[in-house]
């Protein structure tokens, strides 16, 4: 088959289109970012998860160590059961704290892990016992108003 300049242009067009798609996938999308190869699963109960969603990040000292995979309501305890996948490279002691935190004032919520002092490490399928629920703004305001009201009554 003879080669024509037309073929060349069409080739350039197709290559540019595919390059744009790859660029969108790698640079704009999250296909390249943080691929956890090996993970282990732990779970924790929270009395209130606030706005935590599946796929929310799990951070320890600000470093991304895993993702929330599943959230469901436990019908025995009436608490939220949060399942998380953690990177195998990062091992945490059994008495690690899991807190639901907010990035920025109105940002999205994530789980912060604070390592404890236990020498045994968390294993696959185990539970993080020490948790702190999300801070719900309404509760906070309610408490504040209650305290103020108490203060204004006390001095008399």
């Amino acid at each position, binding site marked *: 088959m003879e080669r024509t300049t037309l073929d060349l242009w069409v080739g350039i*067009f197709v290559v540019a289109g595919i390059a744009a*798609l790859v660029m969108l996938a790698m640079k*704009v999308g999250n296909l390249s970012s943080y691929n956890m190869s090996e993970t282990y699963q732990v779970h924790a109960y929270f009395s209130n998860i606030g706005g935590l969603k599946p796929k929310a990040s799990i951070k320890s000292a600000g470093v991304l160590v895993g993702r929330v995979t599943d959230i469901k309501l436990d019908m025995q305890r009436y608490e939220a059961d949060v399942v998380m996948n953690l990177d195998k490279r990062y091992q945490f002691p059994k008495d690690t704290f899991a807190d639901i935190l907010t990035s920025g004032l109105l940002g999205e919520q994530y789980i912060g892990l604070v390592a404890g002092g236990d020498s045994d490490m968390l294993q696959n399928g185990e539970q993080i016992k020490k948790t702190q629920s999300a801070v719900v703004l309404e509760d906070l305001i309610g408490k504040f108003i209650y305290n103020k009201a108490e203060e204004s009554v006390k001095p008399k």
Partner: protein
Amino acid sequence: MPFTHTLQVIGHRTIDAVWRIGLATRFFALTLMYSGTSFRRFHLIIKELFSTGVMSLIIIIVAGLFVGMVLGLQGYETLQRYGSESALGVMVALGLVRELGPVVAALLFASRAGSAMTAEIGLMKATEQISAMEMMAVNPIARIVAPRFWAGVISMPLLAAMFSAVGVFGGYFVGVIQIGVDEGSFWSQMQAAVDFREDILNGVLKSFVFGTVVTVIALFEGFDAPPTAEGVSGATTRTVVTSSLAILMLDFVLTAIMFRGN
């Protein structure tokens, strides 16, 4: 009786529209049926890819660049009121990948390539080239329509991807280089928020659907045009109007299906 006359006109137009929809569907089915022949003669598709895809490159890239720049500017104006200009990258990328990329690229494609297709086929019909082909036992749908159809379907997602990619850089240029939004948060927040399957592949799927619809409309209008100068010009206008409306309506439907609940 002007009233009954109006009623007659409305009825006539409605029946005519339904008739044409049926014809267009049969035309689409025939195109798919005869596609096998055009894939065996791939150089025909390559030739059409050149005139639909390559020739639309410039308009798509320039338009994408400017749409991205406007998004960067407007997004910054709004986001900085809430002190969240670091989310500019997210806004530009999601807007482009989900909506503006597929939709604006398809609108440009309809007016750049679709109108040309209609005019070309309409003129072929007016100068009796299509009847001549039938005379020589060459199926005009297999020889003329199917290669153009596949060229449109192939080039539309590629053009939309280029539009989005160039647009992101347009937003980056205005947001980061000119205004001075933090470069790290621009890209990292974008990467955190844009999901490959959810956003990018759905955008590609959208542009694939738009490409199919636009080329079918353009080819059908050309094939169905009355073989006169007036008929061809009317068909070209109808191509642009109908396919633009079809793109915008389909976009709403597709968005409702794809992104509901997010």
